[in-house]
Each structure stands twice: as C-alpha cells, then as structure tokens.
C-alpha cells in the first residue's frame, strides 16, 4: 500500500512550496504537460508517509529569463523537444490533503488529514485506481459512489451518506450543470442505503414520478425506482393526473395554519412593506391565529377595510395594499379556509414509517411565493414536532425520530441574510444535527444565501459557477480556498462537480455518475417488470419445484 503501484507514472519531483499554498512539483520531461489537469489526483511518496494531493494549478517556467524574450526556434522539432522539460518546464501546484504512513496501525485507521508536506525531491505520481480506492473506500451499507475522478472512468468515488445526512449540505451550480441529476443520485442513494428519511420540496416536479432531461426522454423519479418506499404528495393533483401520475396524497393548507412569520418571509416576493408585515401581527391579535386570514380576505370592499383600519389602528393604505397582496396568496388553489386534513400529520406519519415524501408543487412550482410559503410552513411545523420528540427522547420517554433530510430548491430566496434569521431553514442549518433534521440546499446563487448558513454546510457539491461572488460564497471557510477556486472555475459546464466536506476525506472533482440509463437504475436496485416476472417464476420454481 505504501509503495506506488507499478502502473503509476512518475509525474515529477517536489521542488518547493508550503502546506498553506501547496507544494510545487517540477514536471518530469517525459510527462506531457497537457495531461496534467486541474482537479486531478497525485500521490507523493515521502520518506515515511505517502501523501494524497489534488492538482490546483499548472505553470510554465523557464530556467533562464531570456527564454521569454528570445524563444528558441520551436519550428525545429529537435530543438523544441530538447528544450521542453529542460530549459522550459512546467511546475504543477498540488495541495496535499491526506497522508498515510506505512505502519499497520495507520493502514487500519485510513488516511489522515495532511499536517505536513513531503521533503524536497520526493517523487510525485499520478494517482492510480488503487490510490483512489484507498482514499474514497468502496460501496457498502453507508457509502454510495457519486462519480469518477477526471479521466478515470471506472474508478468510483464514494461518499459517506451516513455522515452526509447528519449535517446540512449544499448542491450549487449554474442552471443546466447537473444539480438536479446529482440531487436525484443523492436522494436515491439515501433511499437505497436507508440512512435517513427524505422530505423533498419538489419545485419543478423533478424527483417524484418522473424527471426531465435536456434533449431526451424523461428519467425515472424516486417513486418509480422505489415504489414502496416513496410517497408522492401533491399540491396540484390536477396537474399530477394530467401527467399521468396519481399522487399518494393531496396537500391542502388551511388559512388558519398561516402564521405572521410565514407572511414575513414572503415580504420580498410579495413586495410587502415593513408596515404591511407589522399590520399582519395586529390582524392576528384582532382575529386570532385561526381566523385572521379568512376574516381579512373576507373584507373585500373599501368600507370594510376602512372600518378594520379604525379597529386595529392601522393605516388604511397599508391594509389596503396588504389586502391586495394577500389576495394573490388566498387564490392559491391548495389554500382553503379549512383544510380537510392535517397535511403535516400525514407527512409525519409517512416519515415515521420510513417512507420518503416528495411534495410536488405542480404548477405552483412557478410561483415562488407558493413554494416559499408551503416549504416554510410545513418545515416549521415538522421541525417543531422533531424538537418535541427529541426532547422527549432525551428524557427517555420516546425513541429518537429518524434522521430527516429536507431538500429545498431556490434556497437563496429564503435564506437571504435578511430573512435567514427568521426562517426555519436558517434555524435548521444553524442548529445542525441536534434535532436530527438537516437540509439539502439546491441552489444556483449561493452568494444570496446567508453566510452563517453557508458556513454550517457540511458537504458541498459545486458545479460550474460563473459569478465571482458565488464562487467565493461556496468556498467560504474552506482550507486552500484560493487554490480550489482555480479548480472550480475550470469545471466543464456539465456533469463535473467539485465535492468537498465532511462526507469525503478530501476535495475531489468528479464526473458524476449517470442517472437515467437502464443500467443506472439497476445500480440503485431497480428491476423492470420483465425481470421481476422472471424472478417471480424462479422463486416459484424454488418453492414448488419445476
């Protein structure tokens, strides 16, 4: 293990550097510089330790400064090949991430974070498949593979799901980079390994029954892969039926369930003034939590509103505007004065039985205020129940509830610094695993998310991001952020992600595994009808004889 395998190609030798900025490797003349790719892995054979490092930069250097001014006659292949690798050479910057010492104890405990660097002239090798396996482990009851390192098809980078779900996580990237596909992989992995129970606020109806794929047929959703373990809830059953899907349950929310803080979070999307928000509180004082919205929306003409303004000593204009804005909320089809059943109770029932819940928004997915309202309202109440139960469990009166992972999209809309303090998602992200609820934040503008929330994310999956501030936000608080930045900005526009954080021993750029092919479904344990039939026949034969 401590010896580089025979296949590994010598890349160069260490010639300088530091732990904080990374180690400089002078590229061997025989190693083509174009094969050195940012984000790739190398191993460095130190005297006692073996280091695993990630390539963060490549520089072209010349031994003599006059080479820049008077380059040799490069049209002559002889001169060019003599000069390359000798007078003109490349320096590769690598960030040592892990070490593994040779003794047996270290081999049992696995790679440790690098707190030292190799000495001068330590040989550097391109990482082999065995190296990757040694670092990222293999698939087992708590690991799934999420993809392959660059240029190493067939090598699997595994993620510790049990560790992943303990903390909140983020999937970031521009639109169209593959966030949704990765999220599906993560969710399917969590389902397959049964490390937590999922609640997905599925804005664009991507995860439940069927998802979309650019320029191709749709892909199977979680319900198709794990029919008995997933329940699809819908806010818009009509649309679900139009798509040929029958949801397991409809979600209806009563007016009485909407609390002032739900409206407060909507202030930005509904364009409410602070006065408007504060008048909601006086409406609640006047009519009570159960009735305030129904009563308020019932006052449809100016006179009634004017009378109400007098009663609550609010300004008429404020109430008038608020009324107009809340009418759009009231018109959302899933809201009704009295809900036929308690959606939260129903969802919790499923979650308690270990059944994962995908809440499809149907056409309300395009209405950001509907998404924010429902996600926030349901999560707040589910979280309350979790807190209650955890407290009971710590008093020994109850079993701890299952770890819950809540997936939310467009998170920058309701985890902005302005409202993160008030929303339940901010609370969950901050209090972390205390109450066994964590978030999976899927977003394209990480810079819009409150710093405090971002800093608490355990594992981050970063696809290509163009905006400087988004890149900064994703890398905030990470060791070697400056170097990883180069890696991040050089990702391909699809299916390549930089993954780093608690669920992995070291940052890694992966080409994420496929999702959407028959083979990929089988990897998650899916069997199609024909196979199931055959299996049933064989089982029959086993039982009753041929």
């Amino acid at each position, binding site marked *: 293990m401590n010896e580089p395998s025979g296949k590994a190609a010598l890349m160069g030798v260490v010639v300088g550097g530091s732990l904080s900025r990374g180690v400089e490797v002078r590229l061997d003349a025989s190693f083509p510089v174009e094969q050195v790719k940012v984000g790739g892995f190398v191993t460095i054979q130190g005297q006692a330790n073996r280091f695993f490092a990630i390539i963060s930069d490549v520089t072209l250097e010349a031994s003599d400064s006059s080479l820049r001014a008077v380059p*040799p006659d490069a049209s002559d292949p002889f*001169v060019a090949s*003599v000069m390359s690798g*000798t*007078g003109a050479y490349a320096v590769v910057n690598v960030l040592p991430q892990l070490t593994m010492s040779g003794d047996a104890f270290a081999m049992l405990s696995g790679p440790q974070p690098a707190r030292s660097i190799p000495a001068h002239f330590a040989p550097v090798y391109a990482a082999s498949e065995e190296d990757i396996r040694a670092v990222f482990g293999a698939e087992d009851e708590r690991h799934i593979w999420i993809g392959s390192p660059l240029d190493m098809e067939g090598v699997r980078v595994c993620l510790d799901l049990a560790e992943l779900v303990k903390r909140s996580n983020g999937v970031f990237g521009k639109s169209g980079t593959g966030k949704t596909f990765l999220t599906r992989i993560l969710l399917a992995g969590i389902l397959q390994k049964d490390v937590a129970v999922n609640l997905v606020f599925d804005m664009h109806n991507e995860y439940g029954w069927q998802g979309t794929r650019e320029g191709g047929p749709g892909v199977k959703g979680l319900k198709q892969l794990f029919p008995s373990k997933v329940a699809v809830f819908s806010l818009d059953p009509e649309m679900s039926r139009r798509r040929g899907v029958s949801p397991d349950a409809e979600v209806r929310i009563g007016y009485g369930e909407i609390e002032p803080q739900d409206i407060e979070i909507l202030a930005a999307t509904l364009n409410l003034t602070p006065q408007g928000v504060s008048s909601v509180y006086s409406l609640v004082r006047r009519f009570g939590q159960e009735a305030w919205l129904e009563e308020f929306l019932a006052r449809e003409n100016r006179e009634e509103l004017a009378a109400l303004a007098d009663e609550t000593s609010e300004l008429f204009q404020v109430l008038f505007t608020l009324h107009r804005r809340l009418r759009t909320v009231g018109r959302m089809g899933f809201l009704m004065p009295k809900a036929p059943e308690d959606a939260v109770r129903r969802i919790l029932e499923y979650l308690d039985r270990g059944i994962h819940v995908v809440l499809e928004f149907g056409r309300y997915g395009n209405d950001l205020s509907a998404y924010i309202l429902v996600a926030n309202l349901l999560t707040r109440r589910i979280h309350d129940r979790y807190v209650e139960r955890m407290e009971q469990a710590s008093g020994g009166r109850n079993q701890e509830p299952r770890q819950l992972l809540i997936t939310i999209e467009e998170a920058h809309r309701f985890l902005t610094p302005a409202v993160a303090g008030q929303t339940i998602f901010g609370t969950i992200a901050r209090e972390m695993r205390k109450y066994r609820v964590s978030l999976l934040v899927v977003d394209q503008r990480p810079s819009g998310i409150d710093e405090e929330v971002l800093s608490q994310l355990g594992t981050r999956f970063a696809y290509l991001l163009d905006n400087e501030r988004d890149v900064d936000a994703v890398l905030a608080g990470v060791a070697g952020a400056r170097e990883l930045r180069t890696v991040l900005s050089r990702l391909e526009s699809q299916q390549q992600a930089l993954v780093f954080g608690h669920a992995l021993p070291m940052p890694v750029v992966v080409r994420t595994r496929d999702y959407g092919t028959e083979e990929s479904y089988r990897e998650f344990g899916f069997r199609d009808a024909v196979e199931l039939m055959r299996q049933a026949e064989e089982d029959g034969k086993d039982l009753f004889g041929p």
Partner: protein
Amino acid sequence: MNTIANTTNYTTRLGEVVETSSAAFTVQCYDLYGAPALGALVRTGRDSPVYGVVRNVVTSSMDPGRRPVARGQDEADEEAVYRSNPQLDKLLRTDFQATIVGYPDSVGTGMRYGLPSQPPRIHAFVHACAPPEVRAFAEDLRFLPLVLAGAAPEADEVVAAFLRQAASAHDDSQAFLMKAGRQIARLLSRDLQRLNAILGSLRA
C-alpha cells in the same frame, strides 16, 4: 555493451604528446596536416591511457623564428606548391590540442570521466579512437562541462562536433542527439544563447 578494453585499437597512431598539463595536452602529428577532426576523441599511451577531445589544430613553422613565405605565385594550383617544395613537409608541423575528458578505470573495463591524477607523459603515443570506442565512451556525457568550460564560442563548436561524431557511431543517432541535447540543456539552462547555438550546430 562494448567495454573500453575490447574497443581499444592501436592501429591509427597520430603522433606524440609534446606538451602536457592536467587539463589538456598538445600533440605533434607525424604527418603534416595529419590531425584528427575537430571534436574527435583521441587516446594517449598504452600504460595509463588518457582520453582527450580535439579542440584546436595548429599548423605552423617547425622553427618559430622562420615564418613560412608565399611560394605559389607561378604555380597552377595549391598542390603544385607542395610538389615543387618537398622540403615543406620537414619545415612545417601540425599540432593539435586536446581537452582531457577521462581515463579508463583501474580494472580497465569502465570509464572514469574527469581528470586523471597525472597528465599523459611527453612522447606518449596518441591514437585516434574508432567508432566503437567513441560509442562506448559517449555512453555517459558527464564530461561535457570540461569541454564546455573552454572559451565560447569555439568550445561550443567542439562540443557539437564531438556529439555529431559520436552520434554517427550510434545506430540510433537521433536518440543519442536527443539525450545529449537534453544534457546540454541542463548544463546551459542559464545561458540559452549558447544552448541555442550548440543545438543549431548539432543538427547541421
């Protein structure tokens, strides 16, 4: 692999050492204009051989006080000058200087690159090295700094000439030149102009 011992031959004797020092020796050729080519590898003596690379060839009057005079005004061509003046062979001499680059190790099978503890003696016989011997010597090029240390740009030409001859003694001369070029590129990494000049004449 050819060892030094079995590639050595003593047939082509060129002349005798007439001046010697730790770093170089001067050879007087037996024949007028009988010097080996610039950059050629030569070997002195039989008992304690020393290898040198020809770096400078001089033909001058035997007697330093008597300068040659022009004699060919009425002759048809240059050869005729020598035919009409057979004494010239005795009045003129050809000398060459060689930079010492190595010597066989005490066992006689390997090569030590660098300077011997004693330079060759005066009157040591000097032989030209045949291609197999050149090839065996040029297996390792760590002696190149000794030659490169001479005054530029002549030294650079000497190096290039030596390498061209060594390359032609190799079956895969391109591979040898590539290896040699890289070695020189490392040695002259701080002086790209010299490097470029040498690489340019290596091709020629």
